[in-house]
């Protein structure tokens, strides 16, 4: 398993609800409908559940485009029995998610999730070769952490959010007679070494699972892949993860760290 950098901030109970590792690729000859069924048959013992979703749009490209030829493939979800792990596959994307379903699941940590992604990705590439094709050409990659910050984590009202986020003022009352109704914001950082960008967003939401009010705090890194080598891909993921953890730590307060049981 990949080793964790010793100086990276670590939390015993981080608010992470989902971790996403994904790649965007081109397959010479394209991914066909029949590939989907054969691929599922190969992984069905581990991912016995299936759902269809609308395909994700191309990244950083206009959504409107002229389409000719056959309709686009859907985005297929292959889920394990617990539905905490799923693979999302569409014509140009392969994505591996770990997520909380009941809310009681223990976060397995990035290193374990990354290793699972690598195993699933290698399996998919091997499948394509077995089908007489060639390995996908990597174009871009993404690592995202979705945090659900519940009201136990030092906030109950929007005006408390300065206790949670270091980039917000501690006094957000807006002065006498004003009531702060809602806070949402977005930040964008450059990844070190020109490796892409990290988008950070914070928005209040209500979770379907338990209908609880939460703050959804997303940190999502995306970058282009030049060489398409797997070693470069894994290096990118590790670098993006380190940036995400450091930015998460910098943007949140010590009081919040305490509620998430910061260890280092």
């Amino acid at each position, binding site marked *: 398993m990949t080793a964790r950098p010793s100086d990276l901030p670590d939390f015993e109970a981080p608010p992470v609800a989902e971790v996403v590792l994904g790649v965007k690729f081109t397959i010479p000859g394209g991914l066909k409908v029949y590939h989907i069924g054969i691929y599922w048959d190969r992984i069905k013992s581990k991912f016995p559940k299936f759902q269809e979703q609308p395909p*994700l749009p191309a990244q950083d490209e206009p959504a409107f485009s002229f389409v000719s030829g056959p309709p686009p493939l859907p985005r297929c979800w292959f889920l394990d029995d617990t539905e905490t792990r799923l693979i999302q596959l569409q014509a140009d994307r392969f994505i591996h998610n770990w997520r909380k379903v009941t809310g009681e699941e223990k976060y397995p940590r990035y290193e374990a999730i990354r290793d699972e992604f690598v195993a699933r990705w290698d399996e998919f590439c091997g499948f394509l070769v077995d089908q007489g094709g060639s390995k996908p050409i990597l174009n871009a990659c993404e690592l995202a952490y979705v945090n659900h910050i519940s009201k136990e984590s030092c906030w109950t009202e929007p005006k408390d959010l300065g206790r949670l986020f270091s980039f917000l003022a501690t006094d957000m009352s807006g002065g006498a007679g004003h009531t702060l109704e809602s806070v*949402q914001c977005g930040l964008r950082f450059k990844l070190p070494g020109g490796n892409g960008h990290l988008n950070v967003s914070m928005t209040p939401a209500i979770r379907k699972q338990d209908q609880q009010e939460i703050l959804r705090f997303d940190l999502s890194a995306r970058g282009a892949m030049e060489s398409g080598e797997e070693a470069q891909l894994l290096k990118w993921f590790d670098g993006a993860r380190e940036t995400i953890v450091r930015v998460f730590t910098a943007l949140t307060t010590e009081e919040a760290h305490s509620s998430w049981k910061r260890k280092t």
Partner: protein
Amino acid sequence: MMVPNNSITASQPKLSPRGLADADVQFRHMEEPITDDAILSAKFLATKGNQAFQGSPGHLPWQRWAEGDSTSTMDVIPTSDLPAWLRASVARLLRLCALEFNWDSYGSPPPSLALVKNVISWLRFAEKETLPEPEVVPASAGGIQLEWYLGKRELEIEFTATGQIEYLRSDKERREEKEDVIKDLDDLRSLLGWLIG
């Protein structure tokens, strides 16, 4: 509820010029190429409302990025730009999704999350800040019904799982009752305006 299914004509309801402008903005960031006919279809808005909701005006580019183009699979409803009465209704709407199949003993499924998002999307775009919270009840065949009782006026709006929006309004003082189909946002705004007007 009150409008029988066969009262809905086969022709696609048309959005008004204002409604079309709204729809155009809503669909700008969707992934599928949109035809004029599709944009003009209220049913399209209903069935694609999940995406429209995610890429809707008022959502800043970063937020759209985080939601509409998200690889996250967690089901949450962003609430930051909802009016207070609608924000207070979201949890009750979501609870409907947890109903068991055949909850009404007539084989009805629970309302889908996509329908809940559609309902929120429509009500959000109606841009009424001062409504009271509605009663939220499941309707047969996977629909959702909202009910307001305000003085002598009552309004029921049903969002069906097939993309129709139907209403029944009654004014007890004037002893008037009317039911029809809501074709566009202007219809909805007008009805909600009647309720509080």
